């Protein structure tokens, strides 16, 4: 992940905040205060390449407006992803691609409905995929655990960075 990123910090920060709402993971997990990997900036770079900065900026503006109106993270996700109200608008499809990129480390064309349309953007994006965390596991091939940890329940979803109540699972 050696991409040189010329993305303004504020834009990257807005993308991180939006990503947190869309994915259901905590903002400080999506963009940790100390973050040598800068995964969020790296993924923004790929989304810009996929859809063009104009489309991405429109999405960021939509997020900022919803946030300014006091919407909760879940409400923001539901609107932007075309869940409630239901929508298949290009913006909602791009938002879905962003969630897929975070969850699977793969870039999917907006509007794709095939699980096999994605292209892995980097090893860091793959191993950092949120899908593994959503099931309290780890990317296949990248275990942070040690021998025998599999014999008992994993850490909680909240400990995996999910923005859910602490007691969940």
């Amino acid at each position, binding site marked *: 992940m050696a991409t040189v990123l010329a993305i303004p910090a504020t834009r990257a920060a807005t993308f991180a905040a939006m990503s947190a709402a*869309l994915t259901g993971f905590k903002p400080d997990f999506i963009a940790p205060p100390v973050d040598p990997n800068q995964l969020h900036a790296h993924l923004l770079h790929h989304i810009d390449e996929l859809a063009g900065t104009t489309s991405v900026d429109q999405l960021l503006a939509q997020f900022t407006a919803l946030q300014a109106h006091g919407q909760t993270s879940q409400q923001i996700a539901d609107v932007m992803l075309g869940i409630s109200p239901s929508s298949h608008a290009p913006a909602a499809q791009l938002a879905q691609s962003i969630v897929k990129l975070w969850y699977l480390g793969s870039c999917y064309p907006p509007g794709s409905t095939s699980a096999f349309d994605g292209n892995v953007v980097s090893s860091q994006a793959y191993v950092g995929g949120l899908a593994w965390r959503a099931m309290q596991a*780890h990317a296949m091939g990248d*275990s942070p655990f040690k021998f025998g940890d599999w014999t008992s329940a994993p850490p909680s979803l909240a400990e995996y960075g999910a923005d859910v109540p602490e007691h969940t699972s």
Partner: protein
Amino acid sequence: MTLQTQYDVVIVGGGVAGSIIAFELGKKGKRVLILNAGIAVPDNRGEYVENFYLANAKTPESPYPPLERELDRPPVSSTDPGLPGTESTPRPTIMGLDHWTNASLSYLVQPAPDPRNAPKNLPFSSTYERTGGGTTWHWLGTSLRLLPHDLTMYSTYGVFGKSADWPITYEELQADYGNAEAEIGVSASVAEQAPLEQAIGLTYPPGYQYPLNSIPFTMVDQVVDAGIKGMSILDDGKNYAVFVSPTPAGRNSQPYQGRRQCAGNTSCIPICPIQAKWDATVSLNHALDTGNVTVIDQAVVRTVQVDSSGRISGVEYLRWSKQTGLDPRTPPPPQIAQGKMYVLAAHAMENAKLLLNSKTPSLPNGVANSSDQVGRNLMDHVLYLSWALAPEGKPVFPFRGPLTTAGIESLRDGDFRRHRSAFRIEIGNEGWNFPVGDPWVTVNDFINGTNNSRLNPMTPPGRPLPATSPKYGGASLVQALNAVMTRQFRLGCLLEQSPMSTNRITPHPTLTDGLGIPRPKIDYSFDEYTLNGFRAARKTCSAIYQRMGATEFTDFSGRKGQPGYFEIDWTPYKFFGAGHVVGTHRMGSDRTQSVVDGNQQSHDHQNLWIVGSGSFPTVATPNPTLTIAALAFRTSRSILSALGA
């Protein structure tokens, strides 16, 4: 044509058998040459791990060259497996299997399916590697022994014909199983395996202990184990106990021979990123450390040469410099390697291909083939896959630990083998990755509002899918996925397959690889014995799920046209290859019906040994690597004896 130095032993291939034999011979001061068809074993596996991370299709072959993205031409399609007719070391791949009737995309040349009801012209579905370390780069690590009855299927159960009886007994193999378990570093406990003695006759020498402690159960194993306590199945009026056993594994439960303890990366296939799982490069390094073993990489053996006395006089090989984009009409100049003794350890498929490609006017059937059995009796562990969700409230937290840590071995033997295949049941720790393609499929379903997994909403097979599926985002997405994906598990039944002379590999008369070497043409079908095994596997897995209170989702009805799809009694099935290619140069005491003897020495040529799972007369049910390794020790002694050591 250049003449090379003469060695004591020339070995074709550096996989399990070739590496162990080289090590055993090198230790005794014998000069050994290994001809490795592929590129040199890399100094570290980081590049291969990176290849795996970056692969869109994380198939068993995905880390290893030649990679799809290395091809020096535009891809034919998004699932382009490469063009085997222009590669130096093409091999079967899962992506090639998707195009199995297209010989420009599939290395194995396979006929179109036969529409008749009895499954004919099935695609041979296993894959393998052609490089140093061989297919153990992506073996699972399962290190089970054969059972005594596995070696006597004809005399015990009256099936498969006399040639199905191995010319060696389980007792004769015991010591070499111990040698193999020490070399590989098998983690298991004799005490934990003890219930299998009564159930299926598995025994160990008195006082025997495995070199490493066993691998503990995952939560998946624990839930299956608890859920089927006391279970038995009825077959032909007899009850057979069904219980879970820890799987002996070639992965380290503690540091061993300079390698680390398993950290549960859940990627044993296609690659263990920390080499906690043994692979043949470990033994290959041991062999090199003797100082008596030389490896020539990028050297594909084209023919085996025989002198007028019937002894092997050399092997002819082609050294390639480019892996793809070759013109088969202009191969590199052949070179000859010579030794006193020769070992073919190139893989069951490649050994047979090589012997059959070596025909001459005086050997019209090819080398070592007076019996006409070379290439025949091709077998695999055909795999019946099923999948389910653990009972609600009992998450199993898959995608942690090794890919498998336990199985149901208690059904590997019994009187039912008179009429149907036995099988072992492997418990998978990788959720629905194998059967469905998760996490990709279910994650996409929950984001897109689709239902390819049948989990959005949960709709077990047999119930109609709702017209619409919900979409999720934010914390709702996390919780919706977590609720189902932490309950995913699967069972894989490895069925023994009948040896059939009509199931065979022959060199294709016109289609070649990029070096101009004829490629394997496959003929492959199932008989009623194997189909009966599928029926029993399906029934048994469903009974297990029912007993556990799990919800089964096995469904192949939408997979017509996919490789491995077939129907029995109008019920859709799909089989998968297990990567356990067996039987193409079987051993036996009758030289008219077999290719090698119990030492894997050719009946026809005194200074030739043909080794590996191709020597197995029957596939039985255990994953074959441990037996390949055990036989390699036996063969090493035979070669040393022939060398007068």
